[in-house]
């Protein structure tokens, strides 16, 4: 009861809210627990599913560090996109499975966020066929990109390269995050001797291994519909 609390109780309740504690814990406790209980980074992209609703409006979230980490590098990336506007629209109109695609510069990273229907590898494959030159223009500016361009001549390697940079999508329900970790570690038991209070630590350690993630699988106003269905229903033709 509040009346029973002593000075040390109040201090310990207050401590985790302080910036000092969070910083000290980040420098000491997090590396310590990462060493004692190592975690593997969870893989990016949508979770595998055979169900229709999970295979439309899928998300791709790429964060690609620029080679030139300066305003000049960022300007090069901005120009690469601006110069290829026609190619991007032509690709969107021809591929027909993309709800939207956005290029964003965050710090010294160029990011590509898109929502597409169907299989990830087919999505990238279709875009290589239609706007491979845009990918080449962007990836050329990105760390580790030289090995996979021109993408038209390195299709499988390029798809893998993109997949490795696609962010892990933290499940919408917190406990499904635990299931993802168990699956990655090959643990499939339905019931066990778990400790649910470790969920915060597991999340911290995963976010240490996987600094950039997508929070949830996206919040959709009209889930379950493909680009083709929307265009057909709205009478926009194809």
């Amino acid at each position, binding site marked *: *009861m*509040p009346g029973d609390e002593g000075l040390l109780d109040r201090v310990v309740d207050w401590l985790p809210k302080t910036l000092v504690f969070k910083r000290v814990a980040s420098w000491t406790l997090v590396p310590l627990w990462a060493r004692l209980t190592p975690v593997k980074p969870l893989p990016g992209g949508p979770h595998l599913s055979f169900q229709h609703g999970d295979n439309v409006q899928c998300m791709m979230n790429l964060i690609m560090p620029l080679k030139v980490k300066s305003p000049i590098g960022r300007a090069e990336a901005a120009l690469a996109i601006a110069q290829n506007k026609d190619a991007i629209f032509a690709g969107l109109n021809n591929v027909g499975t993309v709800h939207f695609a956005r290029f964003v510069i965050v710090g010294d990273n160029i990011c590509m966020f898109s929502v597409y229907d169907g299989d990830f590898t087919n999505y990238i494959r279709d875009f290589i066929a239609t706007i491979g030159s845009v990918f080449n223009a962007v990836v050329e500016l990105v760390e580790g990109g030289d090995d996979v361009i021109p993408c038209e001549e390195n299709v499988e390697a390029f798809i893998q390269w993109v997949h490795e940079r696609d962010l892990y999508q933290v499940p919408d329900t917190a406990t499904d995050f635990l299931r993802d970790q168990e699956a990655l570690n090959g643990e499939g038991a339905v019931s066990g001797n*778990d400790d649910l209070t470790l969920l915060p630590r597991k999340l911290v350690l995963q976010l240490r291994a996987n600094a950039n993630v997508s929070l949830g699988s996206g919040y959709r106003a009209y889930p379950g519909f493909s680009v083709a269905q929307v265009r057909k229903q709205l009478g926009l033709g194809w």
Partner: protein
Amino acid sequence: MVDASVAKRLVQAIIDNLPEPVPGKRPVHTIGIGVKGEFVASDVARTYCIAEHFKGQPVPVSVRFSNGLGGLEQHDGWSDVRGMATRFHLPDGRGTDLIATTLGEFFVRNVEDFFEFADVAKLEKYERRAWWRKLGDLLQLKVPPRNPYPNETVSVDAGALRYANRHRFAQLGIFQVSLIGAPVSYARASYHAVHTFWVTGSDGARRPVRFSWQPVAGVRNTDPKAVPRDKYLFEELKNRLRRWPARFMLMMTIGEAGDALDDPTKPWPGTRIRVVMGTLTLIKVAEDQEADGERISFNPCRLVPGIEVSADPILEARLGAYEVSREMRGGCPFRWR
């Protein structure tokens, strides 16, 4: 239907875990308030469900909002599941119910699970965790258990956590309960019917669905760091409805092949098609709380043609358990269709 003796054991298991008996009252969701309103189906509702209340004509409704805790003590500000039981009064004199809570997923799959849960998650003495143990939690990057609320001496939290640690299917529901908080108003929370139902559309197609009420005013909880107030929700609702009606949208999510149809512990992905089935407008707090709140006897299986129960064992068990509870407190009898 679940055997009558099992239904009695279910209710008794709940009663046995109360701080003190509450004769003549609901054993859980004991504290509640009855409200009058009207439901109007959306233009598309009938396409998906031919049930009478989805035809489009205004349907009078009785709603009972409640706090999940059992017992006569009112603790509105405590983190707790809230209930929203709705009776649609149909033109031919029949009624149909939709019972929902702020919990998105349940924590047991069937009756056997429930008995085990009731056995493990008993009321236990609940005290502030010692500072040095909390410090130990922090060093392990754990979040320490919450401090007891003023006058809170017992809780099922520790037992529920033990149960969740043993059973992964229970973890989502119990984790959600631990974070659920207290709404600033009964009209500012989302309520989920949890179970799967089958609806028949105007084209004869049967679809598995789950229902949720979503507040037009938006979802908002109280500040969890503030000292909780024990009594504010009834007065807040009365004042709110004196000024303006409160509205909820009835959303229906359509399941797909492979989704959990008979297991209320498993969520459906947010990628499923959602349909707006109608709008509920709450007009006033019922004047006769005894008739329109306490004696009204809701049952999640009180359905009308066009909506059917799924094979969810918990839904099936609730049919009998709600009847047993109703008989014990002398509520209005449950008339089947």
